């Protein structure tokens, strides 16, 4: 007799907006790997690009061992329509089919035909739909780094061109987003999801906001691994080299989030310093450029969130000469949801 296990249920936070989906815990259970998933969106009430991107990033973390997923769409029309506008179905397919690792990840089975009918009967208002966009960055070994960057750049440009009133500094924001994309390609190697949201008639809302979720191991974990002591001891090592190595070992073993972020913000420090492309200035450049663009930029990694632009702001106010360890520690806030590397930028 063949028994088919029930698919693992994945339910999002009913409000798939803003940072709320971060509250949801991970669907991964190390002891219970599952090949089948049911993504149940029945009770989703509200959707925006930022919230959906976080949910999708969490999903990407959860389904790495999966081969089959079924999607149930929201019962309510509005969120279902919004998912259509944000090209949810296409994104799922992109996440599933772009790389060998994720091939055949999803076999989309609709429990109803609602998705299709919603898409046909409620044609998206182009202008409204265009103000929010989700892009997937899937590292592909078959494409050159330049081609991959160029492809994503074209999509970002297309989105920015819809902002006729230039509500934010497009070129500057592009440089920030591209740096994040480069980090994914050079360091992470895992899919990342970028969501952008423009509010033209904004009222009190941010005129531009984005979230960039990288599903790789994150800054802290990769820095820690990088700093782990080299097992092969070199007899010719000088005293200062030995001292430096012991400092690194101590950091790798005992360093917390502030210590590791402090390390990552120092010029020349990189987990891939010798690849000839990325020279360890990525994070610093992202922070400086965000500050110049007027952004509030925060990063969430491991279990902590820190507002990075506040570091530059305090330096500008003469409170420090550089990114000091104590200030980073002061700005860090611990969270309780499961780990994800996420950059969040807001421009008011």
């Amino acid at each position, binding site marked *: 007799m063949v028994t088919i296990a029930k698919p693992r249920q994945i339910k999002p936070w009913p409000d798939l907006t803003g940072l709320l989906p971060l509250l949801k815990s991970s669907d991964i259970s190390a002891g219970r790997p599952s090949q089948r998933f049911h993504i149940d969106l029945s009770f989703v009430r509200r959707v925006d690009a930022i919230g959906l991107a976080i949910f999708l990033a969490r999903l990407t973390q959860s389904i790495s061992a999966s081969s089959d997923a079924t999607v149930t769409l929201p019962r309510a029309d509005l969120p279902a329509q919004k998912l259509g506008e944000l090209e949810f179905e296409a994104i799922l397919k992109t996440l599933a089919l772009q790389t060998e690792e994720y091939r055949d990840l999803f076999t989309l089975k609709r429990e109803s035909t609602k998705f299709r009918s919603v898409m046909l009967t409620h044609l998206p208002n182009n202008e409204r739909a265009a103000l929010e966009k989700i892009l997937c960055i899937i590292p592909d070994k078959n494409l050159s780094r*330049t081609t991959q960057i160029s492809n994503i*750049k074209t999509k970002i*440009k297309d989105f920015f061109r819809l902002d006729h*009133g*230039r*509500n*934010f*500094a*497009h*070129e*500057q924001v*592009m*440089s920030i987003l*591209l740096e994040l994309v480069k980090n994914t390609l050079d360091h992470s190697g895992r899919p990342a999801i970028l969501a952008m949201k423009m509010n033209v008639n904004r009222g009190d809302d941010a*005129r531009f906001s984005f979230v960039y979720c990288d599903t790789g191991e994150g800054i802290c974990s990769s820095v820690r691994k990088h700093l782990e002591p080299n097992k092969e001891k070199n007899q010719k090592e000088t005293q200062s080299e030995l001292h430096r190595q012991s400092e690194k070992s101590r950091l790798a073993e005992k360093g917390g989030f502030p210590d590791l972020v402090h390390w990552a913000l120092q*010029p*020349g420090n990189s987990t891939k310093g010798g690849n*000839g*492309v990325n*020279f360890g*200035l990525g994070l610093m*450049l992202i922070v*400086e*450029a965000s*500050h*110049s*663009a*007027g952004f509030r930029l925060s990063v969430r990694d491991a279990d902590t969130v820190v507002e990075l632009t506040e570091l*530059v702001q305090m330096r500008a106010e003469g409170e420090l000469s550089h990114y000091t360890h104590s200030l980073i520690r002061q700005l860090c806030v611990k969270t309780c949801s499961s780990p994800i590397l996420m950059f969040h930028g807001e*421009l008011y």
Partner: protein
Amino acid sequence: MTIMTAHKLQLKARDFGLVDLDEYTPCAKFADVIRVQVDGKKLNEIELNLEFCWVEYSFTHLFLDEALSKLRDSELPHRILTVVVSINLGDARFMAALLFRLSKLVNRDSEGSPEAILRAVNFFCSENCIKILIQSRIVLDGFGDATTEEFIIDGWR
């Protein structure tokens, strides 16, 4: 629009329809514009306005090398290259890397780190008595007033 005075040339990339300065063809075209506009050796100031253009290091060297070589060959002293961009990376090292990373004229040893690129640009400027002004003008809202920050690589000293 091109403004040319006795010793100065001002070029605005956008006026030539050259916005995608992160791609080869527009950068090569802009280099051609500079080549055609600069005639002779009686020019000591070139201003390249790249405002509202997508600027990335991949091909910027095509037109920047052209402008710098024209200044290098000039018979006049006090040569200045002004580059106006809509990007502010907050640090001269990053700005130098953004513009000159792949420059064959300035970054001859193909240095990769921003510090090394800035050093190479400084060396070139000192060697040829050229000052480079990088003006970062960021318009934070609409087409209103810009916040400007200037990064100077001074080869006159």
